[in-house]
């Protein structure tokens, strides 16, 4: 009984294999497959210095640190220049109060 079933399965399998349609491959299929494999295995093409710089600039941590640095540097320089201007004005005011224009 079991042997009979096995022989039927084998026949059914052969029948199914025969009835399956195998699609025809596109032209140059094999060549294209090999080309894609080669491309995938090739080393990654290096970027230009400009692209590398832009990638660096667009990193949030770098962008934030640069903005803070520029803000701090501008504020420091502005405070220095402001205090120098005030000092100069105060000096001019004192000199004007004690030295008449005709003597300077």
């Amino acid at each position: 009984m079991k042997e009979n079933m096995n022989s039927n399965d084998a026949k059914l399998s052969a029948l199914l294999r025969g009835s399956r349609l195998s699609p025809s491959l596109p032209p140059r299929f094999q060549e294209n497959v090999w080309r894609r494999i080669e491309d995938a295995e090739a080393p990654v093409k290096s970027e230009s210095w400009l692209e590398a710089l832009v990638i660096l600039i667009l990193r949030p941590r770098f962008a934030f640190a640069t903005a803070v640095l520029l803000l701090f540097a501008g504020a420091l320089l502005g405070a220095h220049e402001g205090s120098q201007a005030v000092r100069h004005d105060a000096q001019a005011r004192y000199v004007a109060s004690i030295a008449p224009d005709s003597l300077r």
Partner: protein
Amino acid sequence: MNRPLLILLGALALGAAIFTGSYFVSQRTCEMCLTVHQDDLSWLRTEFHLSDAEMAHIRELHEGYLLQCADMCAKIAVKKGEVESALGNGTNITAEAQTKLNELAALRAQCQAQMLRHFVTVSQAMPPEQGQRYLAEMKKLTLGLHEQIEQSMSGETGHEHHH
């Protein structure tokens, strides 16, 4: 123009805007904060690190000097009027006009000497090192300008003054 270059230029413009903005805001704030409550003598206190007692003494000297200075300025103004009337509309300098010019120069010299004496007095009211620095600075500020003018004139005209 390609995209990375645009991003780079945009980032540079943004950075410049951040720097410039913070520079001007800080400068203006600093100027506004520091100029509040300033008088004619504020520069002395901050520049020469003077105490309240030293400042009070110097303020007294300053006010006394201002009276003398105003008196001298009035005399100079009167003398200038006399010079102008002596010069009149004539094309020659008369003996009277020359005398008035000499008197005006003498008054200006007196005024300058008085000012220098005041600088010496104020410098003596300061700690010695600061006093020397003050005296040097004031001589440079009040007498240095004449030297600069003389030097620029001699350089421009090609003349040299031999003193």
